[in-house]
């Protein structure tokens, strides 16, 4: 479970409120889609959740653990894929995955099984021994997804995970996301592809100028029979 309570984050000495008193709860077993225009505060929210940024105010908990008070315990429960697939380019794909497995304490037999499975599913096996600098954007994204899933985290945080993926990998990722939640995991992801959000998410939140302006199931948001696109455009209109 993920809980945000009155979370606020400002940039530029308080001049720009990227996230403004965000309060939100994402239950176990739930796929939560986070939508919003560019610069609305999606990535900032996710970065605070995974410990890349510190909120100015409010609290974030992961399965009851405060991310500021016990950051290491919280991080152990999270798998994260950022919006930009920046990785250690000089390592090979396999070296990177082993590195992540080592620091998350994944036993050798489990890591061998998991890595082999995902490399095969994402069709990365033949490139696993190559340096990451030779990978395409999509391959890096697949590698980061594998790394995020390696320690079987209870909470998955994916920032625009479909970007750069080919249709097969995109389909596979959706399957993995559903499986993760079917096993009781929590999934918090952002996307600009409204169709994906509409089909995949149990609930959707729309953020604009740092404020959560709408949140609910598709049925709740639809209300008057509108498409998600119409709702999004209407709510985020300047």
């Amino acid at each position: 479970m993920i809980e945000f309570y009155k979370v606020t984050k400002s940039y530029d000495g308080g001049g720009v409120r990227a996230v403004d008193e965000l309060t939100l709860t994402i239950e176990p077993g739930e796929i939560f889609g986070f939508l919003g225009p560019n610069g609305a505060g999606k990535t900032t929210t996710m970065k605070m959740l995974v410990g890349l940024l510190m909120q100015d105010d409010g609290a974030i908990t992961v399965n009851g653990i405060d991310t500021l008070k016990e950051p290491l315990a919280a991080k152990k429960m999270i798998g994260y894929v950022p919006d930009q697939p920046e990785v250690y380019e000089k390592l090979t794909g396999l070296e990177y995955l082993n590195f992540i497995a080592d620091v998350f304490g994944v036993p050798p037999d489990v890591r061998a099984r998991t890595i082999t499975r995902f490399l095969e599913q994402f069709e990365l096996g033949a490139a696993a021994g190559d340096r990451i600098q030779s990978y395409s954007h999509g391959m890096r994204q697949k590698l980061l997804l594998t790394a995020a899933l390696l320690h079987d985290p209870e909470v998955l945080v994916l920032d625009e995970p479909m970007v750069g993926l080919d249709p097969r990998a995109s389909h596979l990722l959706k399957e993995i996301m559903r499986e993760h939640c079917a096993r009781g995991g929590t999934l918090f992801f952002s996307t600009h592809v409204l169709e994906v959000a509409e089909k995949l998410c149990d609930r959707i939140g729309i953020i604009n100028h740092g404020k959560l302006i709408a949140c609910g199931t598709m049925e709740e948001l639809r209300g008057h029979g509108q498409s998600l696109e119409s709702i999004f455009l209407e709510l985020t209109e300047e």
Partner: protein
Amino acid sequence: MSPFISLLKVQFEQALRLSPPKRGRPGKGLTWRPVLLLFAVAVAALPLSIGIYAVFGQLYTVLQMTGQQAAILTIAVAGGQFIVLLFGLYYLLSTFYYAGDLQHLLPLPLRPRDIIGAKLVLVLAGEYLTVFPLVAPILVLYGVRGATGWLYWPLALAVYLVLPVLPLAVSAIIIFPLMRFTAGAKNREAFRVAGSLLAALVYLVVRFAVASPGGPVSGRQVQPWLRIGHALSGVSWAAFLPQQWAAAALALTSPGGALAHFLLFAALSALLLVIALLLAGKWFFRGIAGGHGAGRGRRGQGKTVSKAAFKSRSPLMALVLKETRVFFRTPMFLLNGLTSSFLLPLMFLIGFGGRGWRPIPLDSPQSSMVAVLIAAGVIVLTTGLSPVSATAVSREGKAFWISKHLPLSGREQMSAKLIHSLIFPLVAAIVITFFLLLVTKVPVWAAVPALFLGLAGSVPAAEAGLIIDLLHPNLEWSDPQRAIKGFNGIFALLTTIVMLGIAAAAAVALVISGAWPVVVPVIILLLFLLLGVVLYRVLGSLAAKRYPEV
């Protein structure tokens, strides 16, 4: 604005980081940055320049006795050119081949000569800044004490402006063919690192071995620092060396002779620059065509991954291994690390001794103690010169998010960086000790304590570098050279020099107070160990605080 000027402007903005991304306030906060940068450069360089002025002032006085005071000009030009050549190799490699902006520039409708010209001007500007604190004090010193007319000052400025052109052109003449002909190689990065180092080594050997025609000067006959002057200036008195022309342009009393020598110096520099530009035009783009990626194996071969590939390690060991792999596989990191840890100490040792090394007679406890302390000091200084610790955080660049996301404390992550930072000093210390044993015949019983004392001193030196980088990391780089050539390295070196100064003062105080010679290194060792423990605690606390903030 012409495309060239526009490109040049962007290159300088990138290099000086004049356009930090300020959310919501584009353009604000830019004005103070260049001022702060210049101030930082001045603060960092001033003690060095003052030191050079003082040391060369004394050298001038001694050389004046034999009428050879103009030798300091040759030393200035030769030293400046050597530094430009050495760092020019790396600046050129980095700016032309490993810069992240190439992927943006190449698709633009820019003429090759615009890209080459803008990048070359950028490198040249960097070289002016690099040699200024080293060369300017000597030129000013000679102007104040030995200049014969008003023509000296404009010529000194002209020599300073022309000085980096020749070695930079030589570097370019080495680099462009090297990159062109290794572009298709499978292990091209390894070839390029080896080629660059080989070029620097060959230059080093030529400078100090081949070009020095005179025999060694007896160490017992002259002052040690006169020997340094002779060893270096002896090089320049060989026929056909352009630094001799530059020195003559400044030292000759007749304006005609001075101008003629300067013109010779400038003409040769210009000629080599034209050759370099021609080579660049011919080979630069073909050199990048191979990309700067690693040689990639054929994919889709269904390589089976062995069980050994999934070997488990402790988090600390995994971090150390990751640091080491990334460092050794990034050519610019490796080249800088090898240069500071091996080439510079080697240059220092060769330059100091020239061809006049003699076995050091350690016939008294006092002389043995001094030898141990000096050797240890050189090892610690090597750590201070090394950019490994002072760029440990910066080198992660945009991938730093991974470190922040890991479920490991900042303290543990910095411990891994400390262990990695000590690998180079350890190897360098062994090389230096071996060199001392082999060449100067220092007995083993004196060399081994020097090794341990040097390593003990390297720990706080590396910790200081890590603390400096943690306080002000540079994560926004697209060109690896920018990560490793920041001001953090200079501040770390200054910190090491201050630490060595304190240790030297303590040693002198102990000797004056009549301490037994064996006791002095032991007390210095305890001082280093204490400092190491204190700084480790500071580093741990700081890492815990800074990691979430960065």
